[in-house]
């Protein structure tokens, strides 16, 4: 740069300007698993260290560390010195990583060793980097479910003029054919009392004023809320959103806050709509309080397509570390995964056998961490939050390495035990497509092969279970509640909304460009935690990915062909 400086300056032009490094890479890896790991580690060493530090050391570990004080009262093992002095989160992840490692094959472990040697990062850190997603989701699920169990509960819902009904969360319309100017009643209950000022009611994204919401005390800690929705116009589907806080203040974890219930999104239709509750698609909701979760869909037919818009955790760093890994093993099909530096998998991929897959996390307390706590429920002094099973990324890798079609892909998934809940879609070159929902079997609920939710020629999977609605029973463990996903997951309602948005937009024989445009639709894009978007053409063995920026679809889709 220094050479020619004078010349640059004399002519008063900018020269020698620095150029941005790529935020996305495509790596072709050859040979044995160890050799491929070594190549990956050596070529992306800088990014691997950067990704680990910025995402884990500086973001997730401190975040998870805040839970220690709460957890060690329930699980005294976390008072052990090895979890002290800020080591809690890392040690928690490492415990799980070592446990999960037992489910990995020799080839997978060898690849991780190669990655460690190539990058100069310790094997333990590489193991944590490759297992933390499933473990973190499981631990976070427990913390979130506990937190929500302390918040107000919506116990009854009815339309004025009809008798009160117990409120049950359903993925479809909770009420149908209500008057066009309905008046709703909801009952909120919390032992600490409901903070009336916090009660919030909106219809179709419009916040209702104080004149439309009135209260009546039913009992101590039980409040009836009367909601006048106003004239909703012509027949159609609408969304009533209710939320409230209790009167207790807590600063665990900071900042100080009340216990806030989840936004309960109640789907209903007005008179004349004429739809069965199960056939009502959730309408668009632009209230700025939720962001679209991941969604994947497959289109059957002569030119099958599989697409995914994946969002989970960017933390202002993941997008700088994106990579498509194209594996060329010594034996078996070549395959590509869309992921991040230092992670040997992705949440979508394609094999040269013409099998593509994409997986979205599905919140569940039926996860391996809960299962391991339950195993010690008689003596919680020995219980730890430790994961077990196969992380979904390795599951997808095995699918891509072995499956010959969508059906065998599903069989591979169903044969494994899983760390956490996931919802996956597979498509093959022959036009086959399948959808499978999994949990960890902690309560003996099996994986569900959900192909029957197919809508015409399309399969749509978002982040919430569509069939595995009773993923967990309702019970109490050591004073804490275990409930099904639908009762606590923040993804539950918005997941159906994004699936509905896709369903409304899909048309027969959509082309790749149309699908790419759909993936960039505001109803599908999480502007904060978007991670990548992919369109997979199994027959053409082509995978197009947008990534390297937030949201991912703000950049172009770039294609990689996966040939033997």
């Amino acid at each position, binding site marked *: *740069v*220094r050479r020619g*400086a*004078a010349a*640059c*300056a*004399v002519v*008063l032009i*900018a*020269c*020698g*300007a*620095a*150029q*941005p*490094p790529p*935020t996305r890479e495509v790596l072709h890896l050859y040979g044995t698993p160890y050799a491929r790991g070594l190549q990956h580690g050596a070529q992306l060493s*800088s*990014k691997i*260290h*950067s990704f*680990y*530090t910025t995402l884990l*050391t*500086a*973001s997730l570990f*401190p*975040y998870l*560390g*805040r839970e220690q004080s709460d957890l060690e009262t329930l699980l005294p093992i976390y008072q052990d010195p090895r979890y002290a002095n*800020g080591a809690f989160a890392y040690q928690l992840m490492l415990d799980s990583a070592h446990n999960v490692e037992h489910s990995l094959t020799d080839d997978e472990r060898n690849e991780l060793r190669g990655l460690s040697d190539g990058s100069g990062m310790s094997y333990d850190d590489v193991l944590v980097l490759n297992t933390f997603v499933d473990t*973190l989701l499981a631990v*976070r699920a427990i913390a*979130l479910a506990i937190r929500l169990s302390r918040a107000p509960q919506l116990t009854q819902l009815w339309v004025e003029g009809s008798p009160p009904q117990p409120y049950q969360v359903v993925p479809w319309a909770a009420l149908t054919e209500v008057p066009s100017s309905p008046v709703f009643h909801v009952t909120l209950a919390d032992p600490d009392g409901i903070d009336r000022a*916090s009660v919030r009611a909106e219809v179709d994204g419009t916040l209702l004023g104080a004149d439309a919401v009135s209260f009546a005390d039913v009992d101590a800690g039980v409040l009836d809320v009367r909601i006048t929705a106003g004239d909703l116009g012509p027949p159609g589907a609408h969304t009533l959103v209710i*939320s409230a*806080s209790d009167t207790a203040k807590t*600063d665990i*974890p*900071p*900042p*100080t*806050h*009340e216990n*806030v219930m*989840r*936004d309960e999104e109640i789907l209903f239709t007005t008179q004349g709509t004429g739809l069965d509750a199960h056939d009502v698609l959730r309408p668009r909701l632009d209230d*700025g*309080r*939720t*962001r679209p979760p991941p969604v994947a869909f497959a289109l059957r037919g002569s030119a099958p397509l599989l697409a995914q818009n994946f969002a*989970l955790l*960017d*933390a*202002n760093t993941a997008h*700088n570390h994106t990579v498509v890994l194209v594996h060329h093993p010594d034996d078996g099909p070549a395959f590509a995964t869309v992921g991040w530096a230092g992670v040997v998998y992705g949440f979508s991929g394609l094999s040269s056998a013409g099998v593509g897959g994409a997986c979205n996390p599905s919140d569940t307390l039926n996860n391996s961490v809960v299962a391991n706590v339950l195993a010690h429920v008689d003596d919680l002094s020995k219980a730890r939050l430790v994961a077990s099973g196969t992380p979904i990324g390795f599951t997808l890798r095995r699918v891509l390495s072995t499956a010959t079609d969508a059906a065998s892909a599903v069989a591979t998934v169903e044969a494994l035990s899983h760390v956490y809940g996931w919802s996956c879609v597979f498509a093959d070159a022959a036009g086959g497509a399948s959808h499978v929902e999994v949990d960890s079997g902690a309560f003996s609920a099996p994986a569900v092969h959900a192909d029957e939710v197919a809508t015409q020629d399309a399969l749509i999977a978002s982040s919430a279970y569509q069939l595995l609605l009773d993923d967990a029973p309702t019970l109490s463990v050591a004073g804490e509640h275990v409930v099904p996903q639908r009762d606590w997951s923040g993804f539950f309602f918005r997941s159906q909304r994004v699936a509905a948005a896709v369903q409304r937009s899909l048309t027969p024989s959509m082309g790749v460009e149309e699908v790419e445009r759909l993936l960039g639709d505001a109803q599908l894009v*999480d*502007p*904060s*935690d978007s991670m990548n978007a992919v369109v997979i053409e199994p027959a053409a063995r082509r995978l197009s990915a947008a990534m390297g920026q937030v949201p991912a679809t703000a950049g172009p889709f770039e294609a990689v062909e996966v040939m033997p």
Partner: protein
Amino acid sequence: VRRALPVVLALVAAQPAGAAETTMPPKGVWLIDVSYVQSTIDKAWDGNRQAQSLIDPIPRYEPGAGLQGILSARPVATYQIALFQIAYGLFDWLTLAVNVPVVLRTTIDANFQWTPGDYQSSIGRKYSLDDFWAWAASLGQPRPADHWVGNQGTLADILIGARVLLPQPKVMRPLGLRIAGSLQVALPTGHEPDPEELISAGTTTWDLHAYGDVEVHLALDRPFLIEPSGVARVNIGADFFYSYFRPRTYQTPTGSLNPLILTYAPYVGSTYTIDPGDWFGATLSFDLAMIEGPTLNTWLSRRAGSTFGWPALLTLGVGYTYIATQQTTWQSSSPQWDWDREKHWLPGDKNLVRVVATLSLLRLGLPLQIYGGYRAQDWIPGRYTRAADLFTVGARVVLKAW
């Protein structure tokens, strides 16, 4: 006063004919100059010559819960500096000088601001700035003070220099030009900022971004309207210079004080290097002798024998300097980290406008000059540079042992 700090030789103005860019004390004459400089910086120019904050906004995310908000700052940094300069005319054609800048103190007002991000279902609201710092504190990240004071009585890089009056080729003499060359070298006596502090400032040439480690100047003066007293009513000067900055190595923050924001070392490496890039600049100046003033018969005039060419009582100088700045490059183990900094220091330019008034009391019998000036870097926008504005007031004494 040329840039963020007065440059040694440009301040040596007790020169016959009042020439501005080539001024040199005669043989055996000392110039002792003491001045106070206040430099204020609150903006940086982007590639579109638009003013931006000195610090990039920091978007903060709650893992899995989207954008908490954007932490931004509109820092205002003020350096208060005392300059001690001594120049000596070794010959009529050679001047040696040393300049000792002492930072009296630096103050930084961060002016933190907060743009709320996504609704956070866990607390039932969007994060406020206080919410964010409460959250950050629970992760071990302390809230930085909004007001920082440091560098009290801290040396900046000391300058030593020499100016040579160049012989004029015969062919150029009719032009009436006076041509001088000078060399200036900065000694690394400045203080680097604490790498672990979120808000701090150093006193090296790179931190001040005002003068190079080595500078070579070629200056010309052309006086006009010369009075019988030797005072030029108008002087037009020009200066062309090249500034070299040496690469320097810094310790990488480890996050020991700011674990959420400054944990860089694990991927950047324990140290990193900055090559600031060099500058090429040109100055055009106009000096107007506003009031020649009376020449009194004093001990000074009697000792000097002649007052021909002594500076006017009041001189007003205006100047414009253009500086082309080269790319500043960071070199660490992380190209992405490097780029996040380099993108604000792409090849660019500075545009400086200065106004200086000098009151010379030599003609009244006092070997003293008092001057004050202002130099603005934000009147004309630049590119990829920081805009420091500078106020100066000082006095210089002319000494000669007869």
